[in-house]
Structures are given as structure tokens and as C-alpha cells.
């Protein structure tokens, strides 16, 4: 898919190093293959709307940025619930597809499933192309 991934927390780069070496490397051989950034003081998290001032940490926020450097998607969760990486991958593939083709991807789209080509011909006719069960 050709995606650059960056992980950010308010921890220091020293903490990142030990976490990678002592724990992450036991989950993923060689450790996670992306940079761990130190957002000391939540300066960047504030701009992205994910810094929790009361706790002093960046909460779970995830942003997809396209090659033109525009934000395409964001998802923000309070810390107790982890993310769904399959959904992230699905969204990246969907955005890559629409940028490449100009088509749009209806609810529940997965790679290989039908897309829609918007235009006057489709007005009032989406029911022919897409069924509610396609959403799942």
C-alpha cells in the first residue's frame, strides 16, 4: 500500500527506545517498523485535537493524510478501547482507490467489491446498485 506510519505519544524518545526493545520486540520480531515520536507536552496533539490536558497525554487519535498533504480521515477514541487495524487498512485502500479512479466507495466497501460512479444517471437509482446487506 506504500504508507508511512508514525506513532506519537507524550513519552520521551528514551522511553520509546526501551518500550521498543523490552516489550514491542517481544510482540513483533525486530520491533514495530515505524518511528516513535515524542510529543512532549502534547504540543502536536493539541493541534490535532487529541491532547487531554487533565491527564497530560495524547488520547487515541488516528489520521490518514493523502499525498497532497490533506487529511482524509480521522478517528479519535478515549483510551480504554483499542483500534481496529483492519478498518484502517480498508479506509486507506478506499481512499487510494477513489483518488486513482474518481469512483466512490459505498458503505461497507471492501477491495474487489463494486464501487459507484456518481452522476445524474445514478440519482434515485442507488437502490439498484447497492443493498443494505452490502454495508456489512
Amino acid at each position, binding site marked *: *500500500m*506504500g*504508507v*508511512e*506510519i*508514525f*506513532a*506519537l*505519544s*507524550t*513519552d520521551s*524518545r528514551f*522511553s*520509546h*527506545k*526501551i*518500550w*521498543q526493545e523490552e*516489550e514491542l520486540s517481544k510482540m513483533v520480531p525486530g520491533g514495530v517498523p515505524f*518511528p*516513535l*515520536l*515524542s*510529543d*512532549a*507536552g502534547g*504540543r*502536536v*496533539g*493539541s*493541534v*490535532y*485535537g487529541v491532547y487531554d490536558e487533565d*491527564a497530560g*497525554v*495524547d*488520547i*487515541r*487519535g*488516528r*489520521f*490518514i*493524510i*493523502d*499525498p*497532497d*498533504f*490533506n*487529511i*482524509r480521515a*480521522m478517528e479519535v477514541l478515549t*483510551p*480504554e*478501547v*483499542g*483500534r481496529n487495524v483492519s478498518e*484502517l487498512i480498508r479506509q*486507506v485502500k478506499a*481512499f*487510494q482507490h477513489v483518488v486513482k479512479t474518481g469512483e466512490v466507495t459505498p458503505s461497507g466497501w471492501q477491495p474487489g467489491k463494486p464501487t459507484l460512479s456518481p452522476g445524474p444517471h445514478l440519482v434515485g437509482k442507488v437502490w439498484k446498485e447497492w443493498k443494505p446487506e452490502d454495508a456489512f
Partner: protein
Amino acid sequence: MAEAKDGCVKPSKGPIALEAPNQEPLTVTLGKEVSKMLARVGKPAPDFELAAFVDGGFKNVRLSDYKGKWIVICFYPGDFTFV
């Protein structure tokens, strides 16, 4: 005096204000007093530069160096947290 290569403190720019030549200066200044949320879908990603642990070493990473590629950035509450 030589600067320590990986010293105790590594300054980074943090958030970097967008160029806005024809407007009033943004309230955002380099690395200071930034509290306004600027991230919006369909709008340019706020740029930043931060210290990082990358490939076994330390270096600063600037987001806009990766313009032209698809990028995912993930914030998380902390190293060694549970979820």
C-alpha cells in the same frame, strides 16, 4: 565545545504554522501557545517536527518531509499502557 550527539534534551519545533502570506498572522506561533485544534478532514494536515526513536537511533522527524506519500499518524496515551 562539541555538542553532545544524543544529549539529555533535544529541542524540536513541534507544530509548525502554515504559511499564510495574505492573511493576518495566525494565532499559532512556532512551538508556542498552540492550543487551537487545526486538524480537519479535507484540509491540509498541520505540519510538525518532533524528536523520535527511529531504526535504533534518535533523530527529529518532520511530517512534511513525507509529502507525496500516503501517511498515517497514530497518537496513543503512552508507552507501556495496556490496550
